[in-house]
């Protein structure tokens, strides 16, 4: 069997697994967010929070909950890194500087996981496990909560009640993410991913002498990193590192984890609005884009254009032998068409077309299938716009799921669409207009420009992957990409939560 056929078979295996499992997963998600009894653990949590999980919230109250919870999350994570050197479980690593702490805190709370640091030399056990990995869960749960609130806005009429943010947050975490991540983590350990707290220790080498490694709770973080479409690696090399992703099976499994929730949410949406067909229309759109991009990526990488890759005889720069070109291509598309940004191969060394596809995937707004929650609400905004345009063309009052789409909804949808391109353009332009940011580029010329463009595209769309030659650990990039992540996450949420509730009146 050739590598191309093997690549296609791996893609088909993924399609099969997703086709099979999105049904129970989607049904389960719909049930989780459709009321019902509270678990005992959840009651304890609500008591700890001091919130009434059954109190309905209007859209401003829901949004305030999201923003307050995220603001506290950023501040907490920022302080954890700033104080690392004085806290236990730091491996003796020093505290992280203010600009990088700001960037990283924002990055993990916004589900971006852009990393201007190298995990293995910067973050100790405490920050990784009790700080970064926690936000891997919570940012994903917030994304799902916002998506579900939007869906309720479509599903309910004559009410402003979008549900309760605290209940959605806790249910998503306790009933979906934690159990699924625990199972996934054990599967990953069985494949060879490490899970220990041994700290930094010496290990012998073949030629004599010793090497120093850090251990860590890698599998538990890896599982939620993919499942929550986060993408922040324990190690600098992310999912290319053999301790994060040791075998061809774990590689496919990690791609599956990235895709399972985003591809299950449309079914949950269909069930919640009482029309499975509407859910599957969304799902079909997502799947078509994902499959098409993957096919293009495989073609680009297998034909390996570019002088250096031609000379090498294959696009293996930045790729691991155990994955090869085929499954690296699937990973690259899946990570950029969701808001994940984990990488099992380095996009900067892809062919020009392949690297361009990763950029395009993010610029589409990460809607095929998109991040946990953010993919669904992004796609629903596009559906609203599509319905509006179609309505204009046939001369009918545009309606989506029985809700009239008026000028107010269209303005907010247009604002949603314009946020990320504006951030990308302004950030890139400002970086190139100023004298020093260009010093961060590794590659000269056009590819250096792409490194900067990629950085802002990745930040504003909350992806987190990089053309990683760029030295992003400067005050300029830490600050500006941090702002792009914040605005790219929360402004769209404002526009998403705003219009639907009004339309329900």
């Amino acid at each position: 069997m050739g590598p191309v056929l093997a690549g296609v078979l791996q893609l088909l295996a993924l399609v099969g697994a997703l086709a099979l499992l999105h049904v129970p997963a989607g049904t389960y998600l719909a049930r989780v967010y459709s009321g019902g009894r509270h678990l005992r653990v959840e009651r304890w949590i609500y008591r700890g929070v001091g919130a009434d999980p059954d109190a309905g919230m209007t859209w401003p109250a829901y949004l305030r909950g999201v923003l307050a919870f995220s603001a506290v999350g950023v501040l907490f994570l920022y302080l954890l890194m700033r104080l690392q050197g004085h806290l236990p479980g730091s491996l003796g690593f020093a505290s992280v500087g203010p600009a990088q702490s700001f960037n990283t805190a924002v990055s993990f709370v916004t589900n971006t996981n852009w990393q201007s640091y190298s995990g293995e030399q910067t973050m100790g056990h405490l920050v990784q496990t009790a700080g970064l990995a926690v936000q891997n869960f919570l940012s994903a749960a917030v994304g799902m909560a916002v998506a579900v609130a939007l869906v309720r806005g479509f599903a309910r009429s004559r009410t402003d009640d979008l549900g309760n943010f605290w209940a959605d947050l806790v249910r998503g975490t306790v009933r979906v993410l934690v159990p699924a991540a625990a199972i996934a983590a054990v599967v990953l350990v069985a494949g060879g991913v490490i899970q220990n707290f041994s700290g930094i220790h010496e290990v012998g080498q073949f030629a004599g002498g010793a090497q120093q490694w850090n251990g860590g709770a890698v599998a538990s973080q890896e599982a939620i990193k993919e499942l929550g479409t986060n993408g922040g690696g324990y190690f600098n090399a992310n999912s290319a590192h053999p301790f994060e992703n040791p075998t061809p099976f774990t590689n496919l499994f990690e791609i599956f984890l990235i895709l399972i929730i985003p591809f299950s949410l449309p079914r949950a949406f269909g069930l919640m609005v009482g029309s499975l067909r509407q859910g599957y229309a969304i799902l079909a759109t997502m799947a078509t884009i994902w499959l098409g991009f993957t096919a293009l990526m495989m073609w680009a990488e297998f034909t390996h254009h570019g002088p250096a890759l031609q000379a090498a005889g294959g696009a293996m720069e930045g790729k691991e032998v155990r994955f090869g070109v085929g499954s690296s291509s699937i990973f690259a598309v899946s990570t950029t068409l969701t808001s994940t940004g984990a990488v099992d191969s380095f996009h900067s060394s892809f062919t020009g077309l392949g690297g361009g596809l990763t950029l395009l995937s993010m610029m589409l707004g990460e809607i095929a299938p998109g991040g946990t929650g953010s993919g669904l609400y992004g796609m629903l905004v596009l559906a609203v716009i599509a319905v509006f345009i179609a309505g204009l063309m046939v001369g009918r009052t545009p309606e989506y799921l029985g809700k009239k789409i008026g000028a107010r909804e269209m303005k907010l949808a247009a604002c949603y669409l314009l946020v990320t391109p504006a951030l990308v353009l302004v950030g890139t332009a400002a970086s190139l207009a100023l004298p020093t940011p260009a010093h961060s580029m590794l590659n000269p010329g056009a590819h250096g420009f792409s490194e900067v463009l990629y950085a802002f595209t990745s930040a504003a769309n909350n992806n987190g992957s990089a053309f990683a030659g760029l030295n992003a650990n400067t005050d300029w990039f830490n600050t500006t990409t941090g702002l792009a992540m914040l605005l790219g996450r929360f402004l769209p949420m404002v526009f998403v939560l705003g219009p639907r509730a009004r339309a329900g009146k």
Partner: protein
Amino acid sequence: MNTSLTNTARLLGAGLRALLVLTLVTGVVYPLVVTGLAQGLFPGRANGSETRADGRVVGSSLIGQQDYGLDYFQPRPAHGLGQNTLNTRYRLILSGATNLSADSEVLLRQVQDAKAEVVRENSVPGHPVRPSQVPADAVTSSGSGLDPDISPAYAALQVPRVAQRNGLPVDRVEKLVRAHTEGRTLGFMGEPRVNVLELNVALRELTGRKA
């Protein structure tokens, strides 16, 4: 909008309490439970798949090493690999890729130099290596810099050199490579590969050489 100061403070308080409670669940209980399961069920793997030879640890079968010397099978280049620049009382390996672009002249030179070196080192009397025989993985750096594997083609290309330098018959070394070649998982996942550390450990056992 109700944004009075007390309401905001109350909301932030609720947010903080939610964060602390959920940190307990997802940042303490969850990783500890997973660690317990991992250490109970798969202790070897959870601790880094260490490989032993002659009664001592010689590394991890998952982590590639660089300094084998020409008597042994060579790994892939690792130009993206670094050393820690922070917290420097440790000497940590910093995983990473070169991130050089497909049209980079630096990368082109790296590839050409690597190819020339592979041809030179592996051409032994009676077994000249042509540049077109050198597979892509032999002249490119991996994503992690720690790729533990090489392609079967790169292993096969090194067989005559390794056989000659160790005074072994070529077919004996070929057999060794075959025994350490892993096919695609279930026939279709990933790519066929040879684990360099495990192969070299077996080779050292065969030659009876000491580390």
